[in-house]
């Protein structure tokens, strides 16, 4: 571990391998809609406040501008960027997922430590035929959330994971 970042031969280095599967294409639509709704609620609310309560004008104006830029990026860039990053896979040994855009997170959870597996579909997801699979462990810090799966893929994944975990012994701590 004392190895520094010396110019090692690039081909012999251990690297991170991305998981195999991408989310469904509708993931982009879903995240865009979500961000847009958020923008309407927050920016609209603050805009009304700005119009009604005069005292807030000197400082709320700049805050609104900053927020508007953030939401613009969130609507236009973030969903596609995330779609290009997000990956997931499940094997008989582990659940492995990569998510994020500016900050990337690779998570591995061994099947023997899984405590619960659930599937979640919000109203938007239902309309789009998408689902989110969530795997939790004894540590609140080690959970995997796989977003934007086709409902059928999600159901199949949950069923498979349940079979695998049932066959694995361990008290999960």
């Amino acid at each position, binding site marked *: 571990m004392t*190895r520094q970042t010396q110019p090692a031969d690039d081909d012999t280095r251990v690297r991170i391998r991305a998981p195999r599967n991408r989310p469904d294409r509708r993931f982009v639509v879903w995240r865009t809609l979500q961000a847009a709704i958020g923008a309407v609620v927050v920016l609209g609310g603050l805009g009304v406040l700005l119009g009604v309560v005069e005292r807030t004008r000197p400082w709320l104006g700049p805050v609104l501008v900053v927020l508007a830029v953030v939401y613009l990026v969130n609507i236009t860039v973030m969903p596609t960027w995330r779609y290009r990053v997000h990956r997931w896979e499940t094997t008989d040994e582990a659940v492995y997922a990569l998510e994020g855009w500016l900050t990337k997170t690779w998570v591995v*959870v061994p099947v023997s430590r899984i405590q619960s597996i659930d599937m979640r579909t919000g109203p938007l997801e239902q309309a789009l035929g998408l689902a989110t699979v969530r795997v939790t462990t004894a540590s609140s810090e080690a959970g995997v959330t796989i977003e934007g799966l086709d409902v059928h893929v999600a159901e199949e994944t949950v069923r498979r994971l349940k079979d695998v975990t049932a066959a694995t012994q361990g008290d999960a*701590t």
Partner: protein
Amino acid sequence: MSDGTAWRRLSVRIVYLDVLRLAASTAVGGLGLALDGSAAVRPLLIGAAIGVLGALADLARWLTTSYRVTEDRVELRSGRLVRRHRTVPRDRIRTLDSSATVRHRLFGLRVLHVGSGDPESSFTLDALPVAAVTRLQQELGAGSRPVTGAGQEPDDVQDVPGTAAATGTVIARLRPSWVAYNAVTPGAVLVLVGPLLAAYGFLRPFGVDLLDVGRGLLDRVPLDRPWALAACVAVALPLGVAGQAARFAVQHRDFTLSRVGTPPKSALVTRRGLLSTRTVHQDDARLRGLALTEPLAWRWLRLARTTALATGLSVADVMAGGSPASSVLPRMRREEALAVGARILTDGARPLEAPLARHPRSALTGRLLGAVAGSVVVAVVLLALGRAGVLPGRSSGWWPAPLLLLPVTVALTVARYRALGHAVAGAYVVVRDGGGTRVTVALQRRAVVGLSVRQTLLQRLGGRLTVRFATAAGSRVYLARDTGVDQGLALVAAARPDLAVPLLSDPSGARPSSSP
């Protein structure tokens, strides 16, 4: 509940205690009324009312509470209006914590807290006779027998015969020098404030106004002179330190940490206290590692505190210093803390002393840039807000504060960088972090329940990443922050080769090597 195990009750003696409390509270209230009916006696009356209500509630509790221990669970029934029936599986019980206040002691009573790490299924039996507590500890505790006898008060005559025998192996026992190590804290000056406030509240009904007395003193002593202030501190500090020392000595009298039972059914047992004693059992099977905490102020004295990491304690407990004080030892010399830590672990390893790999220089430059940029941004925002007239009054002149504090920020940043380190030592993965409080954690590799690698945009540019080891013990996640990319991946591969299989690809075709 089909089986016919008998239900047990709380001790009748709590009724006597409550009758006494009722009488005392009424007497105090009567005294207050007899003095005069003005507003000044109100605290006395409120106190008396609280006392009466508390005693009545206690009586009701005694009437309605019962518990029993069956083969596989403990059950507690309580309440009349709202009935509760709580069932805790026996293998979920993590800590047995018996404590006693002075008034419990007078009646030979103990309070037993049965902790399962989950507030929903933990409960308190207030109060039981000493013999019943001992019996429960024997029934429920891991390891054969709880520690009794050693340092038991002579008035505790209800000892079950034969329990004094098994004291286990003592890992640590209170040393007089610890009192000194734990008495001197920056907060010592403030120790007197609490009792003074209490005295003020208590004496006011009797016509003694400590504020007036204080003001009289202040008129004669000019506080604005530096020497007067220094004199105040010179008086308050030793008194405060003495107060802290006394408090520590009272809380930790007869402190022993020992191991009872034989593996694999062994447990750590902590006993301590003069006025309130607590005995905490903790299964060795739930031990997951150690943490060594060194706050900045103590590092130059080479003082440190060892904590055992165990599953089943809630995060809140851990934050509160592991409230079932099971695993928390007092502050002691670093070498002592390390030696005790080595004895807490059952495998004889000394992972906390493993040499740690340093993290790349770019971590320091990145953090320094971040600190400077952050300070500038905060200062600019403050300036802008001040210009806009949003900040109240004179505070708009404070905008340069973040810049003036920069030397402190930079020093802490450097200290934090120097703390960074990681290693894989035998069965443990070791990480160190922290500027103000440096924490070294040795976590069993098999206790890692999930592993993640995180890389922010800036870390990507600097060729660094953060490895997060999630676990069910301690604070739930331990980080190796800002390692070099190769370094971090090597750490993953060495710590958990099984989890490295899906995560890492090795172009040479072999599995990731377990050591770089």
